[in-house]
């Protein structure tokens, strides 16, 4: 290229780079286009070099470097080997020559270009080529060519390691296999060398690096050398070498290690854990440490500490199998150094508070965590005892306490170092107390017990102070959901774990504090002190909940082992005392005068606590049975059985069925009732009652039995059934949940008759009032009154809640209630056509009701239900199709859209639920159950005009729609064929839309639907029937199925899709081909003709031949043909896709 041309292209690039910062979008986009074109231009190497050498614009240079990499990889096969090596050495020389300049990021970009070039050719180079190149690098790293070269050599290695690592590799347009081979090659052959070189380099420059202020050349070299070492330790080792890295802890597989890999292991061992090497690193840091605060945050110090922390987590077969002796020594050696970062805690923390950098202390915490992950609690404790009086656990304890105290001092809200340190330390405790592998759980040594109780006490003390001081804070925005807040939850669970190791101490402390707070509240009625105490009591309640019980989340939680193991008289058992302290609070809250002193927030905590507590402690199912076998590795299992019994007996006496259980239950039901009625408008509290406490009460049958015999439960049910204004003012979700819980408690009744009777008593009054409303003469005006709308909505919500909790035992009652309101519902559907919210509730109720009942229905009842649904759908469609509503406000318009969307989803759900009926009754022949087809037909007619491409962009709706469509086409293709032409073309349009979706599941369903359509048509053709008939030719003259055949072939050969889709695509393609073999032949010819050379033509037609092998003569589509075709298609795509797509 001429000098002038080069100059020109440089100017163009420079100008475009400058134009990127111009505000005018037009100029910017044309600049972007120029730059893109430059990057894509063929063979741009000389232009790039010219820019690199002559340009003054940094971005232009950076772009030139990136272009070299992109172009070289793109044109790799076209470039001669000489050119490749010329490019590589050009880059290296460029960097060497400019290593002193300040444009570091351009140089490191060029180094990564070199790394990428090397990797691209890695599998092509001979061993000797690689060796000679790397030898040069080694020379440089060893410092033979001066400091600049040394620095650049290490940087090159860094670039190489990151390029070869899978997660940071740059894209090359090559299969994953290539990347993996490169990775494996580097891992097996070179990483070790790199590590050794880096280590030697840092040793070499270390003493100079420590001179001065840490800003000299040597210090920089040392930093990157050690950074390279940490990078290598972070490498994701695979296979036999999967021995390094954070707590991965995988050991060698049992197969005898090959000689080579065991040699490698030995080498790694020497490099990483041999005393000399480790001691050198630790001593090196010791020197830095002594330099004082100014050095702590230098890059060099940070990176050395990182390396040390990483070394703490070395594990696995890198240590010889000598009963962990070597590993213990290794950890001791490390801990000996790390200890100076965190010990003595008071001194270190006060230094940090006074302004010393906290980074060293934080790294110390992280190292403790890493070590704790690898040790059993007692060996963790022992580590420090070898050279000190106290064990590691007491150090951990005093460090944790110190941090907790320090967070008191600091006022700022944002996550501070104390926060972070506490996170890490609590995680350390968790790891010690609850290892991931429960079989490795061993009891704490005695010193640990002490340590844990100190931490718990300090934590409680600190939080009490915090609650006291924050009680009067006004900003409550993020406190609202305080105990659903994940971070807080994690912290409390960790603290609860600590508390459970010392149950006697922790539970007594909590009991004492709860009683103290509560008596203070009672004495100081209505002052600021009350608020302070309330906040403290609130916090104590939440913590007690965490310590005493685990969240159930669908499983039945059991009493924590350590609490069970406390042996005491029923009256003095710490868990019993704490529970009763809180039951006392709950009981007092029932008092109307005292209630005014309490706050909604306090009640929320109480209700939350009992929601959790009930499942674990109240009238447990297993009362009287011995302890079930636990997976724990309790050493003295035989001894502890008797002890376990003791705790259980105490708890049973206090809360069992024959003990104090019923009395406690009575209080809790009263608390629930009062919370719902006496705390008007406190929605959060009411949500907690209806979604936590009540569900917990009705979850177990034996509790339900008790509930139903109680006056308070009867009272709740009566107030509910009477539609008392008290309960009508609850919000909608509370209505649903409350109604569901009341119905669910029917499981406690002895037989189905009683249960049905109970549910009917509960729901019939409401059904009756709906019927009464619908029969009024002045319905038209009466129904539009807001209070009536409110009541109707409430009743619908309650019925829906009840239907959702249908159990076999109450199914009949729920069904009868539903039948009794069918007529009223139709009336309401009509009368409330202009109240979309009521229409939606109505639809939702029917959806849930049908879903709950459909499995149980007898043919006679099925007819009733289906007729009702048909009527409902016709009323709905009469009022909602073709109506245009426009509002002045955009947001109101959007709301209206959302309402339509929700209605549509409800309708789709309803149809899917209905059509699932024949899945349950598949034994019946379709002819005996004609209603399903009728409903489906009508449903499709209603739904299809409402569905639009815009609406299908909502993923939930999209899935539901295609689920329904697939089902209908599979089961009732003949019905679908009879739908109106507009409806049919709408369905076809959505099928095409579905094929282009990203969601694999949607595409899958679309393919199934297509297949069903194809099979239907093919069978009709075979029988000589009309099949789709005129429908199939509606879309622009072209046969619909041929259209899909073309579309599907194109999709399979030329588009991106998941491999999981090949099978469903095969099932869809087969009938389409069989329907129109002529077209298939034509498509084949088209593809063959695309190629000029005979060989390629041959290849394509052979592939097509193999695709249709064995299926030409198929007259029916049975399973064996399908299977055959599936495997044919796999072969076909394997042969052809890669070949056709690369063109």
């Amino acid at each position, binding site marked *: 290229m001429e000098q002038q041309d080069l100059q020109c292209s440089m100017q163009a690039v420079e100008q475009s780079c400058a134009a990127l910062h111009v505000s005018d979008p037009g100029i910017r986009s044309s600049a972007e286009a120029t730059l893109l074109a430059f990057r894509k231009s063929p063979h741009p190497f000389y232009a790039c070099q010219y820019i690199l050498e002559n340009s003054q614009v940094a971005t232009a240079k950076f772009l030139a470097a990136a272009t070299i990499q992109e172009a070289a990889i793109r044109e790799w096969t076209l470039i001669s080997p000489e050119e490749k090596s010329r490019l590589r050495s050009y880059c290296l020389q460029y960097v060497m020559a400019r290593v002193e300049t300040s444009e570091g990021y351009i140089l490191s970009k060029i180094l990564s270009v070199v790394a990428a070039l090397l990797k691209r050719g890695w599998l092509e180079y001979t061993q000797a080529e690689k060796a000679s190149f790397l030898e040069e690098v080694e020379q440089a790293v060893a410092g033979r060519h001066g400091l600049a070269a040394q620095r650049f050599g290490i940087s090159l290695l860094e670039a190489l390691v990151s390029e070869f690592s899978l997660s940071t590799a740059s894209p090359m347009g090559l299969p994953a296999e290539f990347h993996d081979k490169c990775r494996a090659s580097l891992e097996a052959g070179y990483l070790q060398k790199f590590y050794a070189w880096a280590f030697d380099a840092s040793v070499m420059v270390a003493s100079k690096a420590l001179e001065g202020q840490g800003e000299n050349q040597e210090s920089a070299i040392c930093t990157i050398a050690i950074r390279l070492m940490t990078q290598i330790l972070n490498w994701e080792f695979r296979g036999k070498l999967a021995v390094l890295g954070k707590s991965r802890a995988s050991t060698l597989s049992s197969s005898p290690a090959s000689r080579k890999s065991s040699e490698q292991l030995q080498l790694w061992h020497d490099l990483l854990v041999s005393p000399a090497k480790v001691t050198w690193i630790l001593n090196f840091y010791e020197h830095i440490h002594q330099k004082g605060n100014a050095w702590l945050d230098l890059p060099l110090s940070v990176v050395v500490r990182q390396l040390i922390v990483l070394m703490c987590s070395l594990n696995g077969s890198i240590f010889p199998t000598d009963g962990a002796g070597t590993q213990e020594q290794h950890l001791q050696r490390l801990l000996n150094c790390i200890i100076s970062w965190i010990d003595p805690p008071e001194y270190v923390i006060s230094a940090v508070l006074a302004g010393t950098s906290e980074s060293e202390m934080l790294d110390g915490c992280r190292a403790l965590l890493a070590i704790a992950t690898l040790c059993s609690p007692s060996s963790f404790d022992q580590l420090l005892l070898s050279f000190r009086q106290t064990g590691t656990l007491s150090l951990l304890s005093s460090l944790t306490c110190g941090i907790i105290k320090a967070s008191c001092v600091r006022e700022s809200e944002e996550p501070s170092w104390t926060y972070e340190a506490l996170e890490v330390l609590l995680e350390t405790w968790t790891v010690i107390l609850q290892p991931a592998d429960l079989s490795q759980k061993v009891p704490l040594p005695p010193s640990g017990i002490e340590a844990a109780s100190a931490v718990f006490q300090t934590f409680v003390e600190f939080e009490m102070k915090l609650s006291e001081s*924050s009680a*009067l804070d006004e900003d*409550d925005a993020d406190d609202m959901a305080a105990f659903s807040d994940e971070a807080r939850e994690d912290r409390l669970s960790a603290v609860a774990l600590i508390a459970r190791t010392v149950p006697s101490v922790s539970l007594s402390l909590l009991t004492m504090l709860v009683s103290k707070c509560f008596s203070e509240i009672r004495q100081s009625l209505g002052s600021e002190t009350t*608020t302070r105490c309330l906040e403290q009591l609130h916090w104590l309640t939440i913590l007690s909940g965490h310590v005493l019980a685990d969240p159930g989340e669908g499983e039945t939680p059991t009493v924590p082992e350590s609490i069970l193991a406390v042996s005491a008289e029923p009256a003095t058992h710490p868990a019993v005392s704490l529970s009763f302290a809180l039951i006392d609070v709950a009981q007092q809250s029932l008092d109307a005068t005292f209630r005014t002193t309490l706050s*909604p927030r306090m009640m929320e905590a109480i209700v939350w606590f009992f929601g959790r507590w009930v499942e674990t402690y109240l009238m447990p199912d297993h009362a009287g049975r011995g302890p079930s076998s636990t997976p724990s590795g309790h050493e003295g299992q035989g001894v502890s059985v008797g002890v376990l019994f003791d705790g259980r007996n105490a708890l049973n006496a206090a809360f069992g069925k024959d003990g104090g259980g019923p009395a406690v239950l009575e209080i809790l039901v009263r608390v629930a009732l009062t919370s719902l009625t006496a705390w008007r408008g406190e929605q959060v509290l009411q949500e907690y009652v209806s979604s936590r406490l009540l569900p917990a009460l009705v979850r177990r049958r034996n509790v339900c039995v008790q509930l139903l015999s109680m006056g308070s439960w009867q009272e709740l049910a009566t107030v509910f059934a009477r539609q008392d204004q008290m309960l009508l003012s609850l*919000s909608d979700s509370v209505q649903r949940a409350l109604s569901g819980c009341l119905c669910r408690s029917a499981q406690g009744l002895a037989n189905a008759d009683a249960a049905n009777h109970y549910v009917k008593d509960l729901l019939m009054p409401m059904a009756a009032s709906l019927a009464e409303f619908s029969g009024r003469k002045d319905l038209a005006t009466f129904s539009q009154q*807001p209070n009536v709308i409110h009541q109707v909505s409430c009743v619908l919500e309650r019925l829906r809640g009840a239907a959702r909790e249908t159990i076999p035992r109450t199914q009949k009652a729920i069904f009868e209630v539903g039948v009794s309101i069918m007529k009223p519902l139709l009336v309401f559907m009509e009368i409330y056509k202009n109240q979309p919210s009521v229409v939606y509730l109505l639809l939702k109720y029917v959806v849930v009701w049908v879903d709950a009942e459909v499995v149980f229905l007898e043919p006679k009842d099925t007819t009733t239900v289906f007729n009702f649904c048909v009527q409902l759908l016709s009323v709905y469609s009469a009022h909602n199709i073709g109506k245009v509503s*426009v509002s002045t406000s955009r947001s109101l318009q959007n709301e209206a859209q959302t309402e339509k969307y929700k209605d549509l989803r409800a309708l789709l759900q309803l149809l899917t639920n209905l059509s699932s009926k024949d899945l349950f009754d598949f034994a019946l022949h379709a002819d005996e159950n004609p209603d399903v087809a009728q409903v489906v037909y009508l449903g499709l007619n209603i739904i299809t005009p409402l569905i639009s491409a815009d609406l299908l962009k909502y993923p939930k709706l999209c899935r539901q729609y295609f689920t329904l469509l697939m089902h209908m086409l599979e089961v009732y293709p003949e019905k679908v064929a009879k739908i109106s032409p507009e409806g049919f073309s709408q369905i076809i349009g959505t099928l095409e839309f579905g094929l282009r979706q990203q969601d694999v599941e949607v595409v899958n369903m679309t393919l199934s639907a297509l297949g069903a359509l194809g099979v239907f048509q093919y069978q009709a053709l075979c029988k000589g029937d009309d099949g789709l008939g005129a429908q199939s030719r509606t879309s622009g003259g072209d046969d619909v199925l041929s259209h899909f055949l073309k579309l599907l072939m194109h999709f399979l050969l030329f588009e991106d899709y998941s491999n999981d889709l090949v099978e469903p695509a095969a099932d869809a393609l087969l009938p389409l081909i069989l329907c129109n073999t002529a077209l298939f032949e034509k498509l084949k010819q088209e593809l063959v003709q695309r190629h000029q050379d005979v060989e390629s033509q041959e290849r394509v037609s052979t592939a097509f031949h193999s695709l249709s092998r064995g299926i030409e003569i198929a007259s029916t589509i049975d399973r064996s043909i399908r299977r055959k075709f599936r495997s044919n298609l796999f072969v076909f795509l394997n042969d052809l896709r890669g070949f056709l797509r690369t063109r």
Partner: protein
Amino acid sequence: MSDEEHHFDNKADAGASKTYPQQAGTIRKNAYIVIKQRPCKVVEVSTSKTGKHGHAKCHFVGIDIFTGKKLEDIVPSSHNCDVPEVTRTDYQLIDISEDGFVSLLTENGDTKDDLRLPTDDQLNAQISTGFHDGKDLVVTVMSALGEEQICALKDIGPK
């Protein structure tokens, strides 16, 4: 609409201007509420507390159903709010007069001639063109607190 007509509406159909009390905590999104004497549709509800241990209050954002203006209100959640009675009535469109008034056919055969075309351009255009094309149109009239406005239309097909 002028004030005079307002007055007229109130007299003619006093029942339509009724409001009902409902506890603030139970009013949810998409319901109606009266804010500053205007009927609104609630588009946003949030609850908060007065201090940590105080009582809950509701913050409503409503859109005036006639003017589309945004209005806000904060009410303790145990207190009552006014909920307007919002009705929608369908009428067949008979005529559009020169001055923008429409003539509607009521259920009992009378005509209702006191309503203008809606202020919304799109709906306005749809009504006018639909009417001039000779389509049979049914319009929905929304009324609340004595005010009325056409809010939707539906083509019930040619005769």
